[in-house]
């Protein structure tokens, strides 16, 4: 089957080329297709008859790309029942992606499924000096053996590495005198906020990747706004210089209805 080019216009159906179960409740779907790519960008994944949701590109090389999905609600659970050869609709990529400057010494801080966008960053970034990954427990650690840079782990239950938060490890590194030109973080919003605060305290710029409910993916419908920012278009990656002005960062988000609510209320029905 010849595939039409994937664009940010109407979805194009692609066959799952391979499916890899990462660990409890996570799987990676591979597609044979070369997307125009930058780490941190995302695609909209459509399961006809069900729904369409944004997913970060978690792997990208010459002739394939992948998304890594955590089973949460109806959609992601259904996505994980897909098998090799099944068709899925894709449009994109969307969003800005991470800002990368060669030669910068960088820390990468991933929480749970927040590993997905950071994985391609780590694949592409030459100068990671610290790579921190936190998860609920050992079984939830993504992509073992993938990266050349070793990760420092932490888990909620202490089953692997430090028992505690990724910010503990980041702070330790900073306090121990390690120099970072940039910190990249993705995970639960509260975690990203804590990373941001820590970075501000120590005068280190950071970039985090936000998540909001999305419809269009290209900055028109307003579903994903966060203060003055349009997450799908201006983001999903935001730099410290933006975050300082984003009073809704870690405080507010819009429900599907457009209702503005506290983040806790928002995440009570959204993933995490």
């Amino acid at each position, binding site marked *: 089957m010849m595939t039409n080019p994937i664009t940010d216009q*109407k*979805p194009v159906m692609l066959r799952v080329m391979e499916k890899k179960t990462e660990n409890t409740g996570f799987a990676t779907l591979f597609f044979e297709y070369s997307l125009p790519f930058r780490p941190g960008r995302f695609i909209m994944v459509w399961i006809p008859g069900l729904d369409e*949701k944004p997913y970060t590109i978690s792997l990208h090389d010459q002739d394939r790309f992948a998304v890594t999905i955590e089973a949460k609600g109806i959609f992601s659970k259904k996505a994980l029942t897909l098998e090799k050869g099944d068709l899925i609709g894709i449009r994109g990529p969307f969003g800005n992606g991470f800002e990368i400057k060669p030669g910068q010494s960088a820390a990468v801080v991933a929480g749970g499924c927040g590993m997905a966008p950071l994985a391609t960053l780590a694949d592409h970034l030459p100068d990671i000096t610290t790579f921190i990954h936190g998860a609920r427990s050992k079984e939830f650690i993504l992509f073992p053996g993938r990266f050349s840079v070793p990760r420092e782990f932490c888990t909620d239950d202490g089953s692997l590495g430090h028992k505690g938060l990724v910010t503990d490890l980041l702070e330790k590194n900073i306090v121990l005198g390690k120099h970072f030109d940039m910190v990249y973080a993705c995970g639960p919003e509260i975690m990203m906020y804590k990373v941001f605060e820590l970075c501000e305290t120590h005068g280190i710029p950071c970039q985090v990747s936000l998540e909001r409910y999305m419809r269009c993916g*290209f*900055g*028109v419908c307003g579903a994903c706004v966060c203060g003055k920012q349009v997450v799908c278009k201006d983001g999903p990656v935001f730099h410290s210089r933006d975050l300082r002005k984003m009073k809704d960062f870690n405080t507010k988000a819009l*429900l599907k*209805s*457009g209702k503005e609510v506290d983040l806790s209320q928002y995440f009570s029905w959204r993933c995490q």
Partner: protein
Amino acid sequence: MSIRFLHKILKNPTVLASGILGNSKDILERVHENGCGLMTLKSIGPEPRDGHKNPTVIDLGCGMINAVGLPSPGYLNMENEWEALENRNFPIIASVYGSSIDEYRKVAEYVSSKKPDFIEINISCPNSEKHGMIFGINRESSRDVVSAVKKVISVPLIVKLTPQAPDIADIARTCEDAGADAICAINTLGPGMVIDIESKRPVLSFKKGGLSGPMIKPVAVRCVFDIYKAVSIPIIGLGGITTGEDAVEMVMAGASLVGIGTAVRYRGIEVFQKVAGEMDDWLADHALSLTDIKGAAHNE
């Protein structure tokens, strides 16, 4: 290019179309900072509604198709938003929808108490089986909803029409007679449908959706042209406007203000200052004013 529209002085004739970028004060403020003269809020309905499942908004290259499904927090659940908007330094239109005259009246009356600069009633939305559309294609229902709403609000009333009306000029005239202070035309065209042939399914979860953007501009221009001949109240013309030249064309058809929606996709939030600037440049080049060109396409 500051311009008077009913009781308000606007910094320029560009208007943010309803349903684009939403209702929160921050984002509207950004649109204003990016050169927009008048900001329309996403249509507010009687009940909380999540809208349809995705896909809801798809770009088609020469425009978009959408069936967002009128998501709304419901008019009683927007206190935060109203509170924030109280201290705004920019003018807004609050857009309202309902599925009965009572609902329109109830929502509009409440919204009026929040003192937006204008209220627009969306009697034209094609995205929901139950809501809106029916009002805007029929003379009697248009009249009844306009006069009902007019009685209960204390700000000027704009009526937003659908190009699906067999005779849009007639509907506009009816609305004027019933008390409308301005007309907004057009809402999305269609509805249309896009089928993905691999999955053999309509791409939108709601199957059908309204068309917007450059591909609907000729229909929008024709509607505004027809309405201009029929009414003497001002018209907000929208549908496909992407450049200053498009805006000039719409003004020549008879529009007083020009709405912009889908073009945010193609030219970013900056589209407002770009279009306003291009209009200015065009007028300067031709030594003309907005007033000179308004309705100019009607001259023989």
